[in-house]
């Protein structure tokens, strides 16, 4: 199997203060990859996914406040092949920059028509698509006057343990991006760019919603054999 470039952040990135007491200090134990990749299929089948879970604007009686957007893309493996049947879970703030989570105490309004959580499975080509609302920036206490750039959290589960990924997707042109210690923990500028989606006129639906495109490359291999379609 081919090896792709690793742009992951280090565990310890002191500018992001919470890493200081949580980053492991011993090196990871590296073992032959096949010792870990033994599942023959996805194990996440117990997680309920219904088709309506991919439209975050229709989970309540009314429409949420904010700019309606579509976020769509492809989940591929390191050989560029679509990963079909991958579980994609997202969560985000509402338009005002507030999470529904009770742990979020930012004094911005909640939206009774927006939860901010969605799920879907990728299709035969590895594609996913969510309809949601443009999330807001919000303050945090990492350092003086710290603000997180608007982002959507993505959790991905492909066919095996090696493909597990949780990450965050950012929006192009956000002035907070260079100031964010979490995104800046990715050491290489090209790696950081991989976490920024592209505005996409083809995904944009006329008179309805702006479209963004974001492709995701997972580690691991396709446990389910499929033909090369590229």
């Amino acid at each position, binding site marked *: 199997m081919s090896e792709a470039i690793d742009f992951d952040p280090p565990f310890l990135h002191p500018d992001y203060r919470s890493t200081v007491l949580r980053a492991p200090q011993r090196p990871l134990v590296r*073992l032959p990859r096949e010792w870990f990749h033994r599942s023959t299929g996805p194990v*996440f089948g117990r997680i309920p996914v219904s088709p309506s879970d991919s439209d975050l604007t229709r989970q309540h009686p009314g429409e949420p406040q904010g700019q309606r957007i579509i976020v769509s893309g492809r989940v591929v493996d390191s050989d560029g092949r679509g990963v079909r049947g991958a579980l994609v879970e997202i*969560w985000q703030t509402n338009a005002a920059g507030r999470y529904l989570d009770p742990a979020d105490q930012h004094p911005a309004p909640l939206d009774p028509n927006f939860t901010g959580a969605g799920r879907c499975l990728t299709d035969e080509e590895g594609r996913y698509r969510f309809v949601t609302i443009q999330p807001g920036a919000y303050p945090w206490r990492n350092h003086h006057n710290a603000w997180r750039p608007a982002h959507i959290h993505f959790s991905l589960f492909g066919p095996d343990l090696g493909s597990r990924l949780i990450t965050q997707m950012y929006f192009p042109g956000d002035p907070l991006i260079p100031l964010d210690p979490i995104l800046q923990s990715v050491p290489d500028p*090209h790696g950081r760019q991989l976490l920024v989606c592209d505005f996409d006129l083809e995904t944009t639906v006329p008179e309805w919603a702006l479209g963004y495109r974001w492709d995701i490359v997972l580690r691991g291999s396709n446990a389910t054999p499929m033909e090369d379609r590229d």
Partner: protein
Amino acid sequence: MPPFTPSQTVGPFFGFALPFPDGERADPGEGALRVEGQLLDGAGEPVSDGLIEVLAPDQFARCRTDPEGAFHVWVRKPAAEGDQAPHLDVIVFARGLLKHLVTRLYFPDEPEANAADPVLQAVEPTRRHTLVARAEPGALRFDIHLQGPEETVFFAV
């Protein structure tokens, strides 16, 4: 060949999104084993905003930690595979972890299989115990230390 999408932290605010009903019950049957533990940081303080996932070939559990850093799941002991002793894969996410961590839970009632397990053998002898759960009344105990003298062994996958 495309580069891998980099990891980012799960952050503190996943609690309304990632947990799902009965997520901690990988095995809902009556004979399931209860595994409980605590997620601790380098100061020995509980990590109250962690997410633990436990996997075996046909089992999956997900549990967020509580204010004491505690988690629990219900599982069954998987069969041995080849020369590997029965074990569960464990994934750890938390605020402050820019990448998730992967470790393994081995069973205390399998001393012979554990002694022959190639993964345990690849780990320094003084750290192997961090991968073996302890038998307690009614449960197996598996604490996870992110840092410190008892730092759990984590694997590159």
